[in-house]
């Protein structure tokens, strides 16, 4: 291990002198001396006293020489390159050496660490790690941490290895911080509590370096071109008076400081654009990518580089003008638009210093937005190399409006922009965080940035990175500042996404964790029996809320089998209510409507060229509008076989492309398919007395038969992609009684709102469970029975007898029918009523119609 010897180090010597010379005492002495000397010089200069004047002049010059030496030499001392030194102290940066010299002793961790807190770079790193002042105070109070002994030579050796790992030739404050963390269990524990891993810490340090370590080259080592354009630009660039009416001058706005480019990464694409624009012919490029991917940012970034003189000669000091199609087309009479375009092209061609930026070029190529197609006017200019054009569009618009016009499309070189990888997206967001922090006056933690990327990628599926992540971070920052918080944490991002999607995202803790653990019980409050189904969906939800999903498949996909009225839809509703917060979050599709091949058009949209193309697919549109929902596909067995190919794609990739080429995302959906296949076996079992309370062997036999029927009807690859196939049991009489209890409770709740009580005799329950059950329709007739036999008479009683708040209705059985007795209400009177004539029959309407 190399010895850390600051006393024999040149840079530490200079730093020690600088610390002394810049101390408050010396600063005061220097300021006073300067004032006295200048005053003396003035007095002596006017008094005519020669000798004192000479003396004053010599002192002033010596003083000035020393100040020049201090500012140009002492504080600009450069560290020796790491590979060339024997003493690591020589390779510390001057600022770091200054900081280290303020430490009273190098023996204790506490003293070194507290001294580092004077550095704003270190505070930046700690705050981004979500380490607050409170956490630091806790660390200060810890005696063990304070008294932890360290060997600074070992720390110096570690700092050297950090620097070498990053390919740097000197050691800075960040290296010391990293080395100290690696030697302090308390700091490591604190970082663990904040969920900051080693890789995260290195990323945060990288971020801090990007913020604090700027180009340290002195101005005379930079090319003179970086100081702006010469006066010749004034006379070499032609007039663009008419062009300015239809364009927005990006360069001018940037020079005024009203516009900035925040371009991070994208080096490959920028290089490609530069190469194309610097050609002698066909100097036009079209950037293709979805909104939010950074097409405009690339153009603005180029404009900024051009102003700074950092581009090749063909692009240096160019004026970047953004075409305003609205201004160009507004109020243009017949022939006038063509004239405007002609003038614009002539001016730009002769100006010779303009790069034309045409955003959403499809607007000039006949898209529905404008209906204008003026591409023909551009052809000559584009092909001749007299123009430099950067256009942008989306892949879909390119395919529809540009590609179809061969010559126009051929005039452009295509650059496809892909979403940046996660690492680059984090860098972009770190850059954006600086602006967002300044605007909202908050501090954005690294975890918040990481979470923004992660959640926007998973939940904001119809947009792309980095745009969607930047917007999300901005929105979260605004919400945080409104709450008078100063720190934007990952939890704030989760909260915002939860608000937007209605999906619980935060890790389940406390009451919610208990609810998840006892999910079966909660679902059983609404669903009677059907244990297999309840356990299957409960497991899927627990998985979704705890374990990160590695695939892009939906949250869960189930096939519910069973006859009508056994609780399939009710289970779906209960599931939607629990997971999506609202039982209305169900996208329900009756698959019996998709029996023929042509009905596929309604599912994913009609093919191009047909009249319905613009309408898109019913199904895909519904999912696109509400991607965070439970998708219930009823009677799946009735759908056309082609529909199953579509379902395969959904279950495998979690997304579906409609006829227009847009994606409907199913990754955040729960998919439930229902089918009555094998119903005859379940019915048969029922006839021989099978029910929930039946023998296990009977149940297995029924299930096997149902599964065989299922395999006969559906392809194995389809069945294999489902998370679970759940058979809903036929409801037994006990189950019906429980359902009666649940439904009566709902009636009680409804009357309670009116302040009316209801008392129901046990024989009424018996009557309802007997009459409300139908082997073919399960518990479905029960609702109608309760409506007809209880709710309708009570409604009549409320009107006829004037039952008011505080009143009670008692239900008993008399002459095989329900008898109502009314007790005193606030405004009404006591009495009893005969049952009113009911239209109830134990079959639902559909059955009577023979459906």
């Amino acid at each position: 291990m190399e010895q850390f010897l600051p006393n024999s180090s040149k840079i530490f010597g200079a730093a020690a002198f600088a610390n002394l010379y810049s101390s408050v005492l010396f600063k005061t002495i220097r300021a006073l001396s300067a004032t006295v000397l200048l005053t003396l010089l003035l007095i002596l200069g006017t008094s005519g006293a020669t000798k004192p004047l000479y003396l004053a002049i010599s002192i002033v010059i010596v003083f000035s020489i020393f100040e020049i030496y201090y500012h140009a030499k002492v504080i600009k001392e450069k560290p020796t390159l790491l590979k060339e030194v024997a003493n690591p102290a020589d390779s510390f940066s001057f600022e770091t050496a200054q900081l280290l010299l303020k430490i009273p002793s190098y023996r204790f961790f506490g003293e070194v660490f507290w001294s580092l807190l004077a550095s704003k770079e270190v505070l930046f790193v700690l705050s981004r790690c979500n380490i607050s002042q409170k956490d630091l105070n806790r660390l200060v109070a810890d005696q063990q941490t304070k008294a932890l002994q360290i060997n600074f030579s070992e720390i110096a050796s570690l700092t050297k290895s950090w620097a070498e790992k990053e390919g740097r030739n000197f050691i800075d404050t960040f290296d010391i911080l990293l080395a100290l963390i690696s030697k302090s269990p308390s700091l490591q524990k604190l970082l663990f509590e904040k969920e900051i891993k080693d890789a995260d810490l290195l990323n945060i340090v990288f971020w801090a370096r990007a913020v604090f370590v700027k180009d340290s080259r002195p101005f005379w080592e930079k090319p003179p071109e970086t100081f702006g354009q010469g006066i010749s630009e004034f006379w070499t660039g032609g007039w663009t008076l008419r062009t300015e009416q239809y364009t927005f001058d990006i360069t001018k706005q940037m020079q005024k400081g009203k516009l900035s480019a925040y371009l991070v990464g994208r080096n490959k694409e920028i290089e490609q654009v530069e190469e194309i624009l610097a050609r002698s012919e066909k100097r036009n490029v079209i950037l293709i990518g979805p909104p939010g991917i950074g097409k405009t940012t690339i153009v603005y970034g180029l404009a900024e580089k051009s102003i700074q003189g950092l581009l090749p000669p063909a692009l240096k000091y160019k004026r970047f003008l953004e075409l305003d199609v609205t201004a160009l087309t507004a109020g243009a009479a017949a022939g006038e638009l063509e004239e405007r375009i002609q003038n614009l092209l002539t001016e730009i061609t002769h100006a010779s210093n303009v790069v034309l930026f045409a955003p959403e070029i499809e607007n000039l190529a006949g898209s529905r937005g404008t209906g204008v197609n003026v591409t023909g006017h551009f052809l000559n200019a584009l092909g001749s190399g007299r123009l430099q054009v950067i256009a942008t569009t989306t892949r879909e618009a390119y395919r529809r409006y540009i590609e179809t016009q061969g010559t126009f499309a051929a005039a452009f070189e295509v650059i496809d922009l892909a979403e940046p990888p996660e690492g680059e997206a984090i860098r972009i967001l770190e850059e954006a965080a600086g602006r967002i922090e300044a605007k909202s006056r908050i501090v954005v933690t690294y975890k918040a940035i990481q979470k923004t990327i992660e959640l926007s990628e998973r939940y904001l599926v119809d947009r792309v990175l980095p745009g969607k992540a930047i917007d999300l971070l901005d929105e979260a920052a605004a919400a945080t500042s409104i709450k008078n918080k100063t720190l934007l944490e990952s939890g704030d991002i989760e909260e915002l996404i939860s608000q937007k999607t209605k999906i619980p995202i935060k890790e389940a803790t406390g009451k919610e964790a208990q609810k998840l653990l006892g999910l079966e019980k909660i679902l059983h409050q609404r669903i009677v029996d059907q244990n297999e189904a309840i356990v299957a969906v409960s497991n899927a939800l627990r998985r979704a809320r705890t374990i990160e999903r590695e695939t892009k498949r939906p949250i869960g996909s189930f096939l519910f089998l069973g006859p009508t009225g056994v609780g399939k839809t009710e289970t779906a509703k209960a599931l939607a209510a629990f997971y999506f917060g609202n039982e209305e979050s169900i996208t329900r599709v009756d698959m019996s409507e998709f029996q023929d091949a042509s009905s596929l058009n309604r599912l994913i949209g009609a093919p191009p060229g047909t009249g319905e193309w613009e309408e898109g697919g019913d199904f895909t549109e519904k999912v696109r509008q509400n991607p965070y929902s439970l998708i219930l596909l009823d009677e799946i067995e009735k759908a056309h076989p082609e529909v199953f190919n579509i379902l395969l794609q959904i279950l495998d990739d979690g997304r579906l492309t409609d006829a227009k080429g847009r994606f409907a995302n199913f990754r955040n959906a729960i998919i439930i398919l229902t089918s009555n296949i094998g119903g005859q076996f379940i019915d048969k079992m029922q006839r021989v007395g099978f029910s929930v309370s039946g023998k296990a062997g009977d149940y297995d036999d029924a299930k096997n038969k149902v599964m065989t029927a299922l395999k006969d009807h559906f392809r194995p690859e389809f069945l294999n992609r489902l998370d679970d196939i759940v058979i809903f049991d036929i409801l037994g009489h006990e189950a019906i009684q429980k359902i009666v209890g649940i439904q009566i409770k709902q009636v009680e709740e409804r009357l309670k709102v009116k302040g009316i009580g209801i008392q129901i005799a046990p024989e009424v329950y018996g009557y309802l469970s007997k009459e409300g059950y139908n082997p073919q329709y399960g518990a479905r007739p029960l609702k109608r029975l309760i409506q007809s036999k209880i709710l309708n008479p009570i409604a009549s009683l409320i009107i006829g007898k004037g039952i008011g708040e505080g009143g009670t209705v008692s239900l008993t059985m008399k002459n095989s029918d329900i008898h109502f007795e009314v007790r005193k209400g606030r405004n009404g009177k006591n009495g009893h009523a005969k049952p009113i004539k009911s239209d109830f029959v134990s079959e639902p309407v559909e059955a009577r119609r023979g459906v």
Partner: protein
Amino acid sequence: MEKPAVSIYLAKLPFVFFHWWFLEAPLTLLKILRFIFAAFAHLFSFKELFTTFFQPWKNEYREGLVRTAIVVGVVFKTILIFFDLFLFGVLLALELVIFFGWFALPAIVLISLYGAIFA
């Protein structure tokens, strides 16, 4: 582990100072002065004044205006060339003063001290 003493640094200071003032600093000063000269040439477009001397002012292309624009350009550029030459002359003189003044500064101290004692 000992911290460096400022006194040791101060003891070495005169040698380091003279080395810096008469060797290192003049080299940097030369770089700075050369940069300032190059930046002036760039900002006042000295090279472009000659390369675009006969090109029409503002790249005029309209029939009938091109010749006028060439004349206007030649006139303005001629004025600018003289103006640039004058500026460069002044700049060069200033730079020479600064460069030699740098070496002269310690001598001025000695001269002033001599004057203070013997004048």
